């Protein structure tokens, strides 16, 4: 996905260009919806999250600039924050069954824009596979569920003071796997 295009689209969006918003919708809604769905586990809720993200974007809450990295990463960060806020509001958190990563059948991306998704997905999945179960669980609780430090400690049965160190280790291990071949840090 061309970063330059995204920056231009974003600039047009800031000028309240509805067509630009629609293009952003077409380009990213499926990715945002799928990511939100992974966090909130319901189609209605995921739609609500995407809507909230786009309203924030339209109203200019939170300002993007290229020095913050890729537009898509920024948008996904907002989606994550919105989705875990949604979960907190629903207070569904604690009752929820821990969702472990499972292998799925290969899903074909529907549009050209989703090719990057597929490639990224394979890369990240590959890296996750190498992690220990506990590390995968910690990343899931920390990143996808947005648990608090205390909730993670309870869920994994760790002293609360060790949680941050475990997160760091799991992420370092993941990055090591992700960048082992490319060495592009």
């Amino acid at each position: 996905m061309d970063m330059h295009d995204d920056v231009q689209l974003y600039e047009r969006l800031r000028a309240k260009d509805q067509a630009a918003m629609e293009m952003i919708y077409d380009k990213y809604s499926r990715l945002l919806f799928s990511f939100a769905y992974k966090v909130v586990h319901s189609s209605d809720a995921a739609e609500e999250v995407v809507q909230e993200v786009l309203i924030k974007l339209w109203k200019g809450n939170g300002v993007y600039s290229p020095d913050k990295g890729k537009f898509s990463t920024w948008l996904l960060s907002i989606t994550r924050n919105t989705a875990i806020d949604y979960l907190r509001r629903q207070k569904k958190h604690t009752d929820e069954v821990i969702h472990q990563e499972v292998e799925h059948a290969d899903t074909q991306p529907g549009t050209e824009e989703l090719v990057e998704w597929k490639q990224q997905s394979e890369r990240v999945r590959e890296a996750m596979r190498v992690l220990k179960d506990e590390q995968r669980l910690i990343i899931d609780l920390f990143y996808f569920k947005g648990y608090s430090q205390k909730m993670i400690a309870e869920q994994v049965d760790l002293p609360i003071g060790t949680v941050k160190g475990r997160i760091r280790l799991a992420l370092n291990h993941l990055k090591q796997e992700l960048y082992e071949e490319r060495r592009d840090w």
Partner: protein
Amino acid sequence: MAHQECDKLIDYFNGHLSEEEKQAFEQHMQACPSCREELAEWEALSAELPFLSEAEEPPEGMKERVLTNVWNSDDTSSPETSAPALDEKRRSRKGPLATWFVGAAAAALLFSLAGNGYLLMENQQLAEDREQLAGEAEQLAFERDVIEADYEALLEQEDEEGGVADVLLASNLASTDEELFTGEGSATIIAEDGHVDLLVQVSGMPELEGEEAFQAWVIEGETPISAGSFTIDDDGNGAVRYRLSDMDDIQVDQIAITLEPQPNNEQPQGQMVLASP
């Protein structure tokens, strides 16, 4: 204490802090580069992890519903009439989301942190031994890391009252010309209670005469910045402490000690006697 404050990064990142706690933590982060860098790393996770999501098909009619609600969310119902002045206001407005991205600009630092130096070293090490040892080494490293992390956490807990200092950087200071100057020293940068301090210790230094004093310098690129003057005892031992976190965005490239004709110079006037590699 600093560590417990740093521990709040998880709850900050995941939005579990009250407004008051959040503000206190943001203040802490201004003085804590390691929290800022870790936050940037965590924010950069969104470049990778969301792609683990399975491709879901959005429900029928979602586009129309969502976009209608987006247009309706706008109090200025006609987008064309929105004046530039209003846009300016919007731009400068700090919504709650803005603060989530404080560190995102530092995303380039993703792999540059001390902890990643370790990662890099370990990676190189692993690459060398990969053929025979990859599996075993990784397992051992993992177990060692887990033990280390738990041990650090235990130390933190034990030391609740006193505060624990984290070493960010440690370097030896060696004589620049062993024929002319004796002496050696060490420079350590530590983070404690939300401050970042430089500690310089020297020993075996040559005697001072008259008003002479040693002066420590933090060198950023080519620019020396004074980190304080100090004298030595009869045995040639001396030390100085300097608060780096009071300065804006300093990058420490080298640390050096000069012998100055008088203390507290703005620029070095004397000769460099010790320097970090």
